[in-house]
């Protein structure tokens, strides 16, 4: 076992619709170590996105404990959570979530901007990241000028530009055709080979098949957590 990045114990989370309590996550226990490549698999409404939001420090749990890189997240302020999101987590979303009026390069620079990295270094790091995903020729284009696959590659570049402890991807191939989806997954494979830790949330069996560990979630509970022999396809 490598160094533990994420450790969640007995985590609960509910939503309220009016006064009616809707439990979203029940007694979640999960740990993720460095350089793991895992999938959280589940149908829509299973609570997987809620879990990803909590893991991504975008949301807080109702009870239980969550350690990220040794810090008890429940005790961190909003400011410290923002610092973790900016410096240690890279998000990749199903709908890409690029800011439409910024160029691809500016989009990728944004997390570095919030980390307070000066302009020149920001630009150099962003160009590197875009080169890694094969978008070095698209720096000045706006997101609208890119294909779906290219947008997702730009989003991956934005996720890896800060060299985060973990990349959280929410249905990263959900809006792409299977060929393009495959290309995107190959990029994730490459990041993993280079030592990155990747957590993908998906309902797609094909995505699940290629990783080293599959956590299945159903009605807010983890029903299986299977570790494969091979870690990289």
């Amino acid at each position, binding site marked *: 076992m490598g160094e533990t990045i994420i450790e969640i114990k007995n985590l609960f989370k509910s939503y309220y619709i009016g006064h009616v309590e809707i439990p979203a996550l029940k007694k979640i226990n999960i740990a993720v170590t460095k350089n793991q490549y895992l999938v959280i698999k589940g149908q829509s409404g299973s609570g997987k996105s809620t879990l990803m939001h909590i893991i991504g420090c975008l949301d807080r749990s109702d009870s239980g404990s969550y350690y990220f890189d040794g810090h008890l997240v429940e005790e961190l302020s*909003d400011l410290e959570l923002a610092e973790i999101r900016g410096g240690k987590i890279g*998000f990749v979303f199903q709908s890409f*979530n690029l*800011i439409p*009026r910024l160029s691809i390069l500016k989009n990728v620079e944004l997390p570095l901007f*919030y980390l307070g990295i000066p*302009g020149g270094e920001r630009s150099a790091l962003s160009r590197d990241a875009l080169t890694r995903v094969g978008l070095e020729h698209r720096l000045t284009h706006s997101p609208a000028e890119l294909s779906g696959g290219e947008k997702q590659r730009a989003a991956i570049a934005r996720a890896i530009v*800060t060299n985060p402890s973990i990349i959280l991807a929410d249905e990263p191939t959900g809006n792409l055709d299977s060929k393009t989806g495959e290309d995107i997954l190959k990029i994730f494979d490459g990041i993993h080979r280079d030592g990155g830790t990747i957590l993908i949330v998906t309902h797609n069996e094909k995505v699940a098949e290629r990783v080293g560990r599959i956590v299945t979630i159903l009605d807010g509970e983890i029903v299986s957590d299977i570790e494969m022999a091979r870690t990289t396809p």
Partner: protein
Amino acid sequence: MIDIILMALESIMLNKVRSFLTMLGVVIGVASVILLVSLGEGTREYVSHELMGVGTNLLVITPGKTETTGHAPPQSSTSRKLTYNDTMYLKRNAFTLKDVAPIVIGTSKIKYRNRSRDILTLGVTNSFQNVRNLHVEIGSFITDEDVEFHRKVVVIGRTVKKELFEDENPLGKMVWLAGVKYRIVGIMEKKGVSLGFDIDDLVFIPLLSAQDLFDTDKITEILVEAINAETVDMAKEETIQLLKKRHDNKEDFSVVTQASLLSTLNTILKVLTYVIGAIAGISLIVGGIGIMNIMLVSVQERTKEIGIRKAIGAQNSDILKQFLFESTIISSFGGVTGILIGAGIAYAIPLFFPVVPVKVSLWSVILAFSFSAAVGIFFGAFPAQKAAKLNPVEALMYE
């Protein structure tokens, strides 16, 4: 910091028409503040300047006690008059007075050949030219002998000379003044209009001749000049004491210093300037509400973007700054534009209407700019707070 400002500028430029219209509210507000305050300040300066030209060492004595407030009792209308002897008494006995100039004011018809006009006629002594700082350009002014011997001599103003004589030399010529023949002995230097009163459209005759002409022994007012500005109060006190002695120990006259008149006028005009400035300021607040409205729309529109920014590490303060800079840039830019337009119009006014006094004062510019920037911060704060406090998950899900 510069990056956040650039970011805010980018958002502003993205919605050019909307930003421009939002800015317009501030531009109009600031421009009207600058313009109206400039007019007010200009008027105040003009009035002060004109009064200063008359001299701040000056005291004006008028018959009747008028410095009390409220309605005067009915019998006060029979106030005791001021006389030439009062004047002579002051002149002989006062230590703190430099000069004393009694004036009789009336109107008469002046006629030369077939030209005639109604004219404001001042009966004066030689002291008048020193006290009022008005001088003869050609010939000589009224002398003390002219007064003493009731001489029928007249000194005419520039406008009178032009109207009656055109290019002719009037010195030594005879004119009819209210049916009495007068000889012209001097022509005043050109002074122009002052406080709506055309100094050049006057004639001066010896005081006692004027009393004969208007069939009176009253003096309209006595101008008294103190030795210097510091002794004005002393001069006032001495004048009152001396005149009371001659008036059965009753203070049935008023002594007003030019300085007190000046400061009263100044206060009135200052208050007036502030009031019109404040009224114009209301439009600035309306402009601020416009900014708040647009910023709220902008926050709503960019909810998803705020979610993305938060997900990739933006802190609440980063989001707050971004929106606050945006509203402040809009209002400050509107402020600068408003200042330029307001000052531009203010400076242009005298080109078209030379009689309208205008003064763009630095304090109004600084105040208007600070106020417009403050409006941006104040009215931008609520939308920016709203943006900063958005829940990142909800913002990300927003479509």
